[in-house]
């Protein structure tokens, strides 16, 4: 086995800011070691067999706990962009002793594959081709995810979801309006924002589906009007327990048929895998969502104008799924340092999930909540606008005023906060229509 490559400054730097341009500066053998470094980061153990020509590959990767369980053989081609990998290389890999039987065979290149190479790979379902762009996405995904190596069950982040056999263009095939309400910081008004935006959209005649991805289930409790849902109907966790489909979870909320919800309950917390990278499962959820709500044969095909996803105050499995599924983000913030930190963490998670599905959701902007027009707030506001601009984002012009009536069901829609959410809807629509 190779010695631990962690702590190599060059590789650490390249991992933090991966570019093909920098990787091409490495000598071929160094690049092979960098690939090994990445697979260590992904949770695998590895064996450098490049000099053992009889193996037919450069690296063999193994299950992190069960050391005899081989997870694959990797052939590496550090090529310039105009030098495509051809069919003979793929064919040679297919016959390599290291990948006999069902052992996956990975061919990783910094360039790309020509059509004969792809056709050759398609004749053998154990061959996975990973081109330069896919390789960068894999690195980006690993850096924002945790391999399951740290738990006794063992685990690793498989590169399969980043190979040629996964057509990411078809993972989110439709131009949709799915918004995540996200911030790693709690208490900023995510659930309130989700609820009020749905009502604001409803007032303009739009039909909205709310998805409560937070095991705290505050949104579900407020929307459905029950502290504990005793209806016996299924909740979101039942989808993850594989007892129901997504469409079976949808409940109509209002008599006008403008607001629907997929509710959660505290039981949802039992299926949370945290920030562990599970690319295949994450992609499967995204595909299921789009099949259900946007495909021609989906039960709710194009039924909703907007989908708004409420997320927990953590980069949990649910936040990751929400970010992978969505096109846009609204980040409620309070003008406090912890809110800014939370927003930064959430943006990073969005980038990670964008690496998985090919496109990260766009941050429409930060939405200032609990706005109190006092000296302290006015002192902080210019800084926060500047910080958001520095990261190529912005604060929405509308601020949600501090409003003690905001959570009271009886006069919710008469509140001054609701008037502000009407303006937020206009800002969202302006942004979305401009994109």
């Amino acid at each position, binding site marked *: 086995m190779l010695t631990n490559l962690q702590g190599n400054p060059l590789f650490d730097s390249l991992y933090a800011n991966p570019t093909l341009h920098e990787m091409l500066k490495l000598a071929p053998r160094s690049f092979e070691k960098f690939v090994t470094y990445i697979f260590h980061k992904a949770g695998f153990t590895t064996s450098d067999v490049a000099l053992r020509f009889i193996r037919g590959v450069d690296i063999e990767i193994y299950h992190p706990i069960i050391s005899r369980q081989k997870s694959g053989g990797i052939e590496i081609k550090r090529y310039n962009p105009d030098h495509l990998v051809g069919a003979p290389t793929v064919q040679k890999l297919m016959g390599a002793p290291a990948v006999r039987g069902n052992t996956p065979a990975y061919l990783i290149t910094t360039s790309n594959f020509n059509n004969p190479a792809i056709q050759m790979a398609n004749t053998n379902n154990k061959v996975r081709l990973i081109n330069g762009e896919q390789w960068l996405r894999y690195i980006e995904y690993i850096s924002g995810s945790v391999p399951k190596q740290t738990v006794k069950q063992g685990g690793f982040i498989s590169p399969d979801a980043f190979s040629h056999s996964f057509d990411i263009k078809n993972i989110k095939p439709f131009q949709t309006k799915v918004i995540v309400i996200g911030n790693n910081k709690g208490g900023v008004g995510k659930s309130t924002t989700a609820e009020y935006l749905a009502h604001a959209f409803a007032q303009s005649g739009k039909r909205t589906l709310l998805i409560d991805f937070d095991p705290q289930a505050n949104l579900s409790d407020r929307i459905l009007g029950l502290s504990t849902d005793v209806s016996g109907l299924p909740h979101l966790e039942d989808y993850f327990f594989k007892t129901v489909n997504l469409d079976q979870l949808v409940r109509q909320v209002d008599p006008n048929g403008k607001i629907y919800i997929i509710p959660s309950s505290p039981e949802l917390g039992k299926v949370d895998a945290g920030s562990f990278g599970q690319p295949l499962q994450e992609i499967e959820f995204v595909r299921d969502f789009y099949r259900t709500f946007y495909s021609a044969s989906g039960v709710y095909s194009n039924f909703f104008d907007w989908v708004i996803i409420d997320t927990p105050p953590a980069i949990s499995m649910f936040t990751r799924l929400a970010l992978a599924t969505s096109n846009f983000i609204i980040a409620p913030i309070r003008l406090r*340092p912890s809110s800014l930190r939370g927003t930064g*963490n959430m943006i*990073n998670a969005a980038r990670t999930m964008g690496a998985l599905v090919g496109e990260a959701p766009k941050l429409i902007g930060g939405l200032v909540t609990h706005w109190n027009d006092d000296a302290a707030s006015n*002192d902080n506001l*210019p800084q926060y606008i500047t910080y958001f601009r520095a990261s190529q984002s912005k604060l929405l012009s*509308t601020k949600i005023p501090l409003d003690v009536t905001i959570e009271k069901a009886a006069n919710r829609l008469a509140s001054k906060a609701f008037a502000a959410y*009407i*303006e937020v809807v206009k800002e969202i629509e302006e942004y979305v229509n401009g994109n």
Partner: protein
Amino acid sequence: MSTATSNQSAIQERSGQATKKLCQALGYSSLKSTDLKYVALALAEVGAEEVINNPHFAQKVKAILDEIVPKKELNAPRSTSNRAKHQKQKDNTATIQKGRQKKSLLDNLVPLKPIDMRIINPYSSPDPYLLHEVFGSVQLAIALREFTMHTLREMVGVVETQNPDLPKPNKRNKDSIVQFILEAVENKHTYNPSAQI
């Protein structure tokens, strides 16, 4: 086509022609439309300096602005069919005032070197050196003028930590503070990373 729409079209056409002429003069005739914001930024930086130092130049710019900035037509008659619409707009004014507020100049900042939000330390005073690196001198000057005196005094503290021997600015005068910070970050004084808090 209404007067407002035809004016807008004329302005857009003028803008397009002027931009094209400028790019050709600079030898950048093949710039993409997505790069035009950089041209605008370069112009704004140079133009700001020239407006300050050259009154004739300033007069020319003001003359064009006076010509093209639309003026309100206070006595234009309203048709009766619009009366209900205008009434509703008046009724919504209070709502709108509670909601969306006018844009700040800071909303127009364009980062020259965008950063990951996570590198900002929100628990400490805004770092003028970092902001200078991100936005450049002209935009930083705009941003500083939008900050409150309280925030600016904190930023003076950051500069003074870096350069304890600098002459103190008049902390009651915004112009003095802004000038002090700008001179510091433009490397007129030494930046000492080890002096960071």
